[in-house]
């Protein structure tokens, strides 16, 4: 990606934190997705040493893909279609590659975001230009194609995870999700096995925001990643015939429209078959966003002879506008501007409009902001475990793209363009950022468990801007809460030296399942082991998680216990409690933790005492921060009244 390494502080100034040779190049990220475009410069193996001796993966040949396409960077490529073909019929190999080759772009985008090699001069039609790099650009990549034209099915995903474990990946990245009401979904179960073997599993939280409780991949052994914006935008200005201007987002070549006002018509949802070419030809068309694919609307307008499109958010869908690679000049605008533009086009007797491109703008403030689409908590499976865990860049991300499909994602006849890089948005894009950052941490701290890596990423994440004001939520324009941003926005340079970590073992997770009233059959399914729950279990809320979610039912006290492990030097940590409510008193015992050596463990307890009642379904937030003056080890707190 361009820009996000800089935005995350991974520029030259901090290069020394993460060595580029040795341990780093022995790390392998397994990406389960739509496959790979191996010819992309992001997967060049120039400068890479021999493949690690522990690697057991392979490069599987198939349609348009030979084993020789793998190299010392892309060290594995497999595909899993047996389940899909049983459900959807044989893959038409004239239409789709029955091989690891990525015909859709998504897998190439996510793999290069996590671990793409450095590519100078990367851009999308001149936008977002710069040097592209994956977050962990020296690590190796292995891809597991588990998603096909019509779906990703769980038997294939599980088969991909099964092989990735066997191949000896260190990190698994899955920008995939489904509806699950328990931890017995396939990704959850595969991730448990991976975690047991020390593999860090990062998953996307989902794009069902801003609805509350819309999370996917909420198992506590998974790192669940929400999406946020960065400090880069692609403004496009809508100019109306009445002289008014409105700024939106646009990704098209500046010469694509005549430099004058054009006739302007209203096309409503611009669905297939709804536009009359006689009314649209040679004009700019206003379309309203709905659940259909955004670039399809541009295709419809273009097919009807329209010259450009203004795509507006519908009532109630807010101000979030995403950059899409449309097949004709388009500016997307938020709901407020959209309402005004719609009034103009529907009431002016002779409406006209034009679009002015502003290119790429950086240093946009405030940034990051939580993306409106990013799925949110509370966690419906276990309300006492706060999810998502954190947020990372997932809006308008430039990364490598397939050569098989145009950047709009439309069919090959609609979009004949081919680009090396494309700009996409989603928690699919934020998840591989965290996968790559986890690989960086693993290279510096090979002994850290997946929970330790997640803890480091979470306790060092930030949730305020440099001026101290809270990170905003695009959906509301108001400060975001831990239900949207989890522990906050990832900060890898701080995560490399977190001071203290909240570690977890397989047994801790088993205890958690016991405490969550999972019966032995379910525990056996998830853990594959022959476990017996102790007669007296710890409460599920006592899972040694780096965050606190408290569900208040009436009055009383709620006591949580945590154990921190010192991974810094000797030091004395003092606690600071921050809470926005007086309705619950929060006390921590002891208030000071003294560490004399590395790996020393200390426990503390947090007591939440309900002082006064609050309305049902109200929430209050805060944090518990330990600091020795050098490190700040912060945990978010979410208190919910049921």
């Amino acid at each position: 990606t361009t820009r996000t390494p800089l935005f995350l502080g991974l520029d030259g100034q901090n290069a020394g934190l993460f060595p580029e040779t040795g341990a780093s190049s022995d790390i392998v990220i397994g990406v389960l997705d739509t496959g790979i475009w191996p010819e992309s410069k992001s997967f060049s193996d120039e400068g890479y040493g021999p493949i690690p001796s522990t690697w057991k993966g392979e490069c599987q040949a198939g349609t348009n893909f030979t084993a020789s396409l793998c190299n010392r960077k892309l060290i594995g490529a497999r595909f899993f279609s047996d389940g899909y073909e049983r459900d959807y019929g044989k893959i038409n190999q004239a239409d789709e590659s029955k091989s690891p080759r990525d015909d859709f772009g998504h897998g190439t985008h996510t793999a290069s975001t996590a671990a793409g090699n450095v590519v100078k001069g990367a851009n999308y039609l001149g936008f977002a230009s710069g040097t592209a790099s994956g977050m962990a650009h020296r690590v190796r990549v292995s891809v597991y194609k588990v998603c096909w034209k019509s779906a990703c099915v769980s038997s294939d995903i599980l088969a991909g995870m099964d092989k990735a474990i066997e191949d000896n990946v260190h990190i698994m990245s899955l920008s995939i999700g489904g509806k699950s009401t328990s931890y017995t979904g396939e990704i959850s179960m595969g991730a448990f096995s991976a975690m047991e073997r020390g593999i860090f599993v990062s998953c996307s939280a989902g794009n069902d925001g801003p609805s509350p409780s819309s999370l996917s991949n909420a198992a506590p052994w998974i790192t669940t990643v929400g999406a946020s914006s960065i400090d880069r935008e692609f403004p496009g200005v809508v100019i109306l015939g009445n002289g008014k201007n409105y700024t939106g987002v646009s990704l098209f070549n500046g010469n694509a429209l005549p430099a004058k006002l054009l006739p302007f018509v209203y096309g409503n949802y611009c669905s297939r078959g709804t536009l009359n070419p006689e009314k649209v030809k040679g004009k700019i068309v206003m379309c309203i966003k709905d659940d259909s694919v955004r670039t399809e609307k541009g295709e419809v307008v273009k097919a009807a002879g329209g010259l450009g499109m203004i795509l507006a958010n519908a009532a109630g869908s807010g101000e979030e506008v995403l950059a899409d690679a449309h097949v004709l000049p388009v500016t997307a605008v938020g709901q407020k501007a959209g309402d005004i533009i719609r009034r103009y086009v529907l009431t002016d007797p002779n409406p006209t409009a034009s679009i002015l491109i502003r290119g790429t703008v950086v240093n946009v403030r405030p940034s990051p902001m939580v993306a409106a689409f990013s799925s949110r908590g509370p966690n419906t499976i276990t309300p006492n475990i706060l999810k998502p865990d954190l947020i990372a860049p997932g809006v308008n991300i430039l990364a490598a793209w397939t050569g098989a499909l145009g950047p709009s994602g439309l069919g090959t006849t609609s979009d004949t363009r081919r680009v090396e890089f494309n700009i996409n948005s989603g928690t699919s894009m934020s998840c591989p950022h965290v996968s790559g950052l986890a690989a960086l941490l693993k290279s510096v701290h090979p002994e850290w468990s997946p929970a330790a890596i997640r803890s480091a990423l979470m306790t060092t994440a930030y949730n305020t801007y440099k001026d101290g004001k809270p990170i905003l939520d695009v959906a509301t324009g108001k400060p975001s809460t831990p239900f949207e941003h989890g522990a906050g926005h990832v900060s890898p340079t701080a995560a490399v030296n977190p001071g203290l970590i909240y570690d977890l073992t397989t047994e801790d997770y088993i205890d958690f399942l016991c405490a969550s009233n999972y019966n032995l059959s379910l525990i056996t399914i998830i853990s594959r082991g022959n476990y017996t729950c102790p007669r007296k279990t710890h409460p599920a809320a006592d899972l040694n998680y780096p965050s606190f979610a408290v569900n208040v039912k009436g009055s009383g006290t709620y006591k949580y216990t945590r154990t921190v492990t010192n991974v810094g030097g000797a030091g004395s940590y003092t606690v600071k409690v921050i809470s926005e409510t007086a309705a619950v008193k929060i006390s921590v015992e002891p208030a000071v933790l003294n560490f004399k050596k590395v790996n020393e463990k200390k426990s503390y307890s947090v007591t939440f005492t309900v002082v006064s009642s609050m309305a049902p379904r109200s929430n209050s937030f805060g944090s518990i921060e330990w600091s020795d003056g050098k490190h700040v080890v912060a945990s978010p707190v979410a208190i919910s009244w049921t």
Partner: protein
Amino acid sequence: DGAQQATYIVHMAKCQMPSSFDHHSLWYDSSLRSVSESAEMIYTYNNAIHGFATRLTPGEADSLMTQPGVISVQQEQKYELH
């Protein structure tokens, strides 16, 4: 029997594998054969779970659930890219 087949993921309690089987895949296959002569094994999982994926009718799935060592027969789910 004309019933609609679907893909199921079958979870096995590997610790209950009879000692007469040399390899878990043989035990899985034997369990499957006990409910269907024609059902084919789509995947045998060795690391992510203990079990396998196969196509079954709902009746066969119910019957498989009663076999020794079978702890769960879950219908496959559809996932989506994010």
